């Protein structure tokens, strides 16, 4: 029973990490930048979702509103910050690290602005369905209707995303401009626009990850929420496990990470919560630095 519980908890958390990892991968594929502000964007989207819940009183309106807000904000960041960055900071000793520093600055900026507008205290989003566990053979599971819902929505979104990528012209352009921007440009793809779209999709995915991370926890969130630090680290690690380039890899990486963390927490020690992802990351980078999916010789970022 405990084994089943552990796996179910792991899969639910893992699906949230997968969404975050997908956001990392989408941004990486469109602009070759690891967006460390992703967690900040997810947090901002969660606040937007919170405002929508208080205005309209429904979680089901809040989720799409948060996704839209996250997408718009991410697109704005790409258009303003990333294009300036390419223009100004592409030479000199700092060129390789400038995008990292810029997205970190953005992370700090988002955090401060959120804290200025909404204050530092905890806010709360109530889950749309019960988080009381199902009962099976008279025993109560940790797995609840809420976790089931999170799992279903995440899977549906992933399916939609893969349909978009595999079956539509837009998806083809997205893939083409990720792998060969110059050739895509020559064949008439608006590469710049497609890049912005990649960021927008990532913003939307991050928004869902942020809201689910909140309701899957205790429902509370604040500018300094540790849940979001964990989301940032876990999403990044899941993306790295998957190879940073592959959407499928991001999903596998997220699920793997979620299940491993769940096992360590339940069978070893809950206080290892924050150090486990770090250790997993080190192990992955040592034994298979190119990720599970991906066959490049080494990591050259």
């Amino acid at each position, binding site marked *: 029973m405990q084994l089943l519980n552990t796996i179910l908890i792991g899969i639910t958390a893992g699906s949230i990490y997968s969404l975050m990892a997908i956001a990392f991968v989408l941004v990486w594929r469109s602009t070759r930048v690891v967006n460390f502000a992703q967690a900040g964007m997810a947090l901002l989207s969660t606040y937007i979702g919170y405002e929508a819940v208080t205005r309209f009183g429904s979680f089901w309106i809040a989720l799409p509103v948060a996704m839209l807000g996250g997408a718009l904000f991410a697109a704005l960041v790409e258009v303003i910050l990333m294009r300036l960055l390419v223009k100004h900071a592409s030479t000199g*000793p700092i060129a390789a*690290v400038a995008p990292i*520093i810029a997205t970190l600055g953005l992370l700090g900026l988002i955090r401060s602005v959120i804290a200025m507008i909404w204050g*530092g205290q905890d806010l709360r989003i109530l889950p749309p369905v019960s988080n009381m566990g199902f009962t099976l053979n008279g025993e109560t599971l940790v797995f609840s209707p809420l976790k089931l819902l999170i799992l279903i929505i995440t899977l549906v979104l992933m399916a939609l995303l893969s349909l978009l990528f595999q079956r539509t012209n837009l998806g083809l352009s997205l893939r083409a401009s990720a792998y060969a921007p110059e050739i895509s440009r020559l064949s008439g793809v608006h590469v710049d626009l497609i890049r912005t779209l990649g960021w927008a999709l990532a913003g939307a995915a991050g928004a869902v990850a942020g809201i689910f991370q909140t309701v899957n926890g205790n429902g509370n969130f604040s500018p300094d929420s540790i849940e979001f630090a964990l989301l940032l680290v876990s999403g990044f690690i899941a993306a790295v496990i998957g190879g940073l380039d592959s959407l499928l890899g991001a999903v596998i990486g997220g699920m793997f990470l979620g299940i491993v963390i769940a096992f360590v927490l339940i069978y070893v020690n809950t206080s290892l919560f924050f150090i486990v*992802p770090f250790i997993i990351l080190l192990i992955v980078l040592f034994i298979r630095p190119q990720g599970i999916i991906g066959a490049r010789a080494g990591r050259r970022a």
Partner: protein
Amino acid sequence: MHKSKNSKHIGLFIFFGFLLFLLGNQVDELRVYQGASVAVYVIAISSLILLTGYSGQVSLGHGALMAVGAYSAAVARNELHMPIVLTFFVAVITTAIAGALLGSAAARLSGPYLAGTTLALAIGLPSLANQFEVLGGEQGISFDVGYPPQRLGDDFTQYKWFFWIAALTALISMWLLSNILRSRYGRNWRAGRSNEVAAQLSGINTARSKILAFTLSAGIAGLAGALLSMTIGTVSPSAFPLALSFSLLAGAVLSGVSTLSGVMIGAVTLVAIPEIADVVAHRIGSSENVTTNLPGLIVSVLLILTVLFVPNGPVEQHHARAAKRAVNKKS
């Protein structure tokens, strides 16, 4: 010729130290305390400049490395009752060992991978401190360097003592570091950063060179951590938040990562920002939310603007402009 340049540098550092000594006697307590903070930041930022500017790596984990240094100094002081100078050495060596371990992982990583790994470390490490009894959990442990020696006189305050220790340490480490950067090692780091393949072809072991840079950088960060906890008086997980790593990065970028000579700019800015924010907040009469978060906002905005418009730092920018002017004059 090389030797004469070095001795000139010693003279410069001694002169600078004397200037600081005079200044320390003139200003009030708060300024002396801020002076100590500036000295701590100078050391911490220079460790990041060494890493980022000279070996092309970015670390978001230097806050965590500072914590390692602070804890090891405090444990050496509290449990083993070492003299204060020795505790600083302990801090440097312990953190350097941690840095060597991290560096051997880091040498295989580049750019965003290293940044992400060190970010995971910065978030994970402080929570580990709660696991060990000897480190005192959330409350942390005290780190007391003791009163200033009696012979310095009765009106020699505690803060002035902190300032003396921090400023002297900063001067010595800056002198050592600027010499290392001009040595063979410094050239190897720069070569590896500019073009890794070319450096390898000319016989530089870039992996070993990167590990060495990380080790040295970590050792210096550990020293800064020990000094920081000296000025606070205690070591606890909350003294080394992720925000500290961010501030250091901002300080390094503001100073210009490619040269050590701008390091004062970043350090003074980091210490001045809370004061400036306070003045601004009072002027516009803002709410409490705005006041408490204004320093963070300013740091972030400065970080972004510097990376966008002065990516290689003010000192380098000035040099580049001067060089351009010289070329224009000639033609």
